[in-house]
């Protein structure tokens, strides 16, 4: 049986009656943000804190909401500037030719096998208009239509982010060839 919204609401109401002794404050906003952005996972102790501390869950809920609002603010800023954050439907990229460039109106993504290892070098380059609307210290993530994060970081002075970490089985070049493939930039 799949638990419905009623069960979730009941669980939430029951957990809200737990006593709070302040230990939940050990779970910092920064740490929750790190996990919610997919940079890390909660430790067993943090999971326990979330299960037992209303304060920890309040911190979790607030960070979750703030990240949602950040997404909304980012979308508004891009829309006002006419910046597109998604690749259109890409024609199947031809294999074998590297670097492979995935173009878009306001950014481009370059894929290249790592010259020294079995990994991949993925580069995101923002075009001028996109760079102009970026705030200092703002992080970005590049995700595909399946929600897989391709890279994440802050743009350098050339408007680029480079990643040398590709932990997935399917190569990025292969992913780029699948039907309906898209990449999207979001705050990260």
């Amino acid at each position, binding site marked *: 049986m799949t*638990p419905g919204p009623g069960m979730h609401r009941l669980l939430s109401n029951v957990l*809200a009656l737990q006593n709070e002794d302040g230990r939940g404050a050990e779970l910092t906003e920064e740490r929750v943000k790190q996990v919610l952005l997919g940079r890390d996972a909660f430790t067993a102790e943090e999971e326990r804190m979330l299960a037992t501390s209303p304060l920890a869950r309040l911190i979790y809920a607030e960070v979750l909401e703030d990240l949602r609002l950040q997404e909304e603010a980012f979308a508004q800023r891009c829309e006002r500037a006419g910046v597109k954050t998604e690749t259109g439907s890409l024609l199947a990229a031809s294999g074998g030719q590297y670097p492979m460039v995935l173009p878009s109106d306001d950014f481009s993504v370059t894929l290249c096998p790592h010259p020294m290892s079995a990994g991949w070098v993925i580069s995101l380059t923002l075009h001028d208009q996109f760079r102009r609307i970026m705030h200092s210290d703002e992080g970005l993530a590049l995700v595909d239509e399946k929600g897989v994060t391709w890279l994440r970081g802050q743009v350098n002075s050339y408007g680029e982010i480079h990643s040398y970490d590709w932990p997935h089985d399917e190569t990025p070049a292969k992913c780029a060839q699948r039907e309906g493939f898209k990449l999207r930039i979001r705050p990260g």
Partner: protein
Amino acid sequence: MMTPRQRAIWDAAVAVCPDRGKLVQEIKKDAAVRGLNPNVTCEQALSQLLKTHLDARRREAAGITEHEDRVWAKLRQISDDLIREYQAKHGRSPPRGYRCCPEHFREIRVRILRDEPDDQRVGKIKSSTIEVYFGRFCDECRHLVSLESASETSHPGEPWGNGVLVLPPSLTKALPLLKKCIDGLDARMRDVIDAAYFEKPKVVILPPQRPGGRAECRGRKALGQGECERLRKEALRQLRMCLDLRMSEKSR
């Protein structure tokens, strides 16, 4: 010589300026007021000093710090901008209470994140903190915003943090444990929980104007609203104890 208007302002200023000693000290310490700064006239310096002093007294009287005052001014400005935009878009003022609703606080936060995320006053402010500011300093909202819901405190036996509905995904593993706990409840409490959370009403909740009863209502038990709420609270209390126990057993 003072004009009558200036005299009236001065009298009002004196009324909110009970600490004359402090003002005298400030005047004594200020080189420009004493004519020792060639770049500023004494009048300009005195005017600035009085303004600063009276601002400080006003904040003191209102129980607001300088930082809070600056944050509030910024939030109010963004709120006014949003309301002007609403009027321009819809051709009418927003409904009463709009300025004080959580959606407006979230819109303010989005506007900050969109345009001024690096602002030292408000760049990092959270929606819940914005709500607290409006609850404290906005005349319109003071009576509408519940500070309790935005605070990080609770009273014994009351839901904490206003019963946050967003739960971390990992907590879904508590759902089967909760199901077992529900099964262990007394039948009446289980019926009330079913009615309140699962839309499977084995009981009928009578409205306040029809109290009195445990009568049957189309084959279902009928309970007064007060009795129903009492049973619901008791059920939640028992479920909490049961769940705590089962979760600690599971983590062992």
